């Protein structure tokens, strides 16, 4: 089974290691593991990406569909996050077992992307109050092995980068209604500007220190985690405390600033990778 059981001695070993800035896999506290990104893996989706980070495996598919804008925001498109915890990852997710975790991740993502400056939603609007693009961002957890939030957000950002939205031609008929014509040319598309899309960075409190990019074993040892969504420019769009423990305001401030620094460099590295600069 997929869950990790650690004895007291093993936990102490990890905690003492973290105190001395050495982790069980040899990293220092603020070091990120290397991970794999693959874009355009699902041909049925408008955009897709797969991220594999140690034992965590995430597949994200983005589908662009035509819809009607919300009444309150007639000039904006919509983003819909949906997370599916596949039973492949953990037998506990069978049936509706993974729904709680799935909703948690989906709400975290929609909060992180809720800020106006992350994605220009007005670009997704086709005709004011009548037509807009709805981006369905479907996250599929194939294997869960620590640092889930970070991996999901990296995959989402990569999939959005890969997303191709077909160009449309609009004509207005006699009744003032807008008619949409979809181009036949599959290469006639526009892309989404993901420069300011946030990335979630999990900061894990273990003993007195904090750790970035925790493994499953470290997650078991930690009292609580702070998930911070950071944009390329270092803006923080949301934060959430995950786990049962409690934190002092000072350590929250410290953790947020650590996550922010990591988030900025991670964003930079991801964008460089996606644009093929490395």
């Amino acid at each position, binding site marked *: *089974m*997929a869950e990790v059981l650690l004895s007291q001695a093993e936990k102490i070993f990890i905690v003492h290691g973290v105190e001395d800035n050495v982790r069980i896999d040899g990293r220092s506290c603020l070091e990120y593991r290397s991970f794999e990104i693959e874009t355009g893996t*699902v*041909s*049925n*989706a408008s955009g*897709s990406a797969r991220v594999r980070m140690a*034992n965590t*495996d995430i*597949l994200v*598919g*983005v*589908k662009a*569909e035509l819809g009607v804008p919300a009444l309150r925001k007639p000039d904006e498109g919509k983003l819909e996050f*949906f997370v*599916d915890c*596949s*039973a*492949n*990852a*953990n*037998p506990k997710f*069978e*049936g509706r077992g993974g729904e709680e975790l799935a909703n948690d991740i989906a709400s975290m993502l929609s909060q992180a992307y809720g800020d106006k400056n992350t994605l220009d939603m007005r670009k997704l609007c086709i005709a004011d109050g009548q037509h807009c693009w709805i981006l*369905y961002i*479907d996250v*599929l957890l*194939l*294997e*869960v*092995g620590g640092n889930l939030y970070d991996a999901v957000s990296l995959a989402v950002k990569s999939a959005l980068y890969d997303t191709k939205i077909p160009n449309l031609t609009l004509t207005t008929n006699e009744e003032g209604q807008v008619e949409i014509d979809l181009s036949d040319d599959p290469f006639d598309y526009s892309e989404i500007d993901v420069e300011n899309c946030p990335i979630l960075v999990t900061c894990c409190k273990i003993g007195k220190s904090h750790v970035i990019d925790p493994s499953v074993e470290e997650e078991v040892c930690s009292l609580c985690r702070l998930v911070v969504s950071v944009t390329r420019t270092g803006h923080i769009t949301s934060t959430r405390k995950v786990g049962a423990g409690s934190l002092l305001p000072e350590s929250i401030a410290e953790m947020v600033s650590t996550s922010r620094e990591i988030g900025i460099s991670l964003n930079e590295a991801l964008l460089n990778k996606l644009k093929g600069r490395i």
Partner: protein
Amino acid sequence: MAGMTMLSDQGLRMDGRRPTELRKLSCRLGVFTQADGSAYIEQGNTKVLATVYGPHEVTGAKSKALHDRVLVNCQYSMATFSTGERKRRPRGDRKSIEMTLHMQQTFEAAILTQLYPKSQIDIFVEVLQSDGGNYCASINAATLALIDAGIPMKDIVCACSASFMKETAVVDINHLEETHAGTEIVMAILPKTEQIVFLQINGRLHEDHVPKVIDMGMKGCRDVHTVLTQTVQSHIADAMATMGE
């Protein structure tokens, strides 16, 4: 007119295959480390991932345990982005439930169930991309995952679909052919004994043609079997090599 274009005068299908030709089949065993067994299969544009957990203690209600054989628990789900039009739910819809049931029947026939009484084997299948023949790809992936998990079976279950168009039986149909041809037979066999463990005929097919199409399906299954066996053998050879004899 649709029937005319399905099979050209030269005897080629829409994707350029001959009637007896399978789509490109590539598979991998042991893709995940956490599960007891896992496999990934690509059958043309259909991509399926299968994992197996168990045999383990029965989860949930203990009353589900069977005193004389193992409980085969299956779940078939499709990623919401796997189809042309977005699916609203990955599982729980009628088709998925039906698929789950069919898979369960197929594997109950293939696994040596009497070896693990009062236990449970979980088979989870996830369709990542769908382009026809989902059931066949799922069965083939699940078989490989079961082999990876080391669960004893009577034989390697192989599944394949077939159809009938322009007086010709064709094998391993894709989504386009599935929607246009009208008939589809789906079958799973145990190749060694040539026994059919699953057979389903969708749509209209004249009685006289049924044997022809079934024969074509059988042939497809045997071809699939060749590929699966090769994969398993090379996987085991690799595993042996890493162990150093």
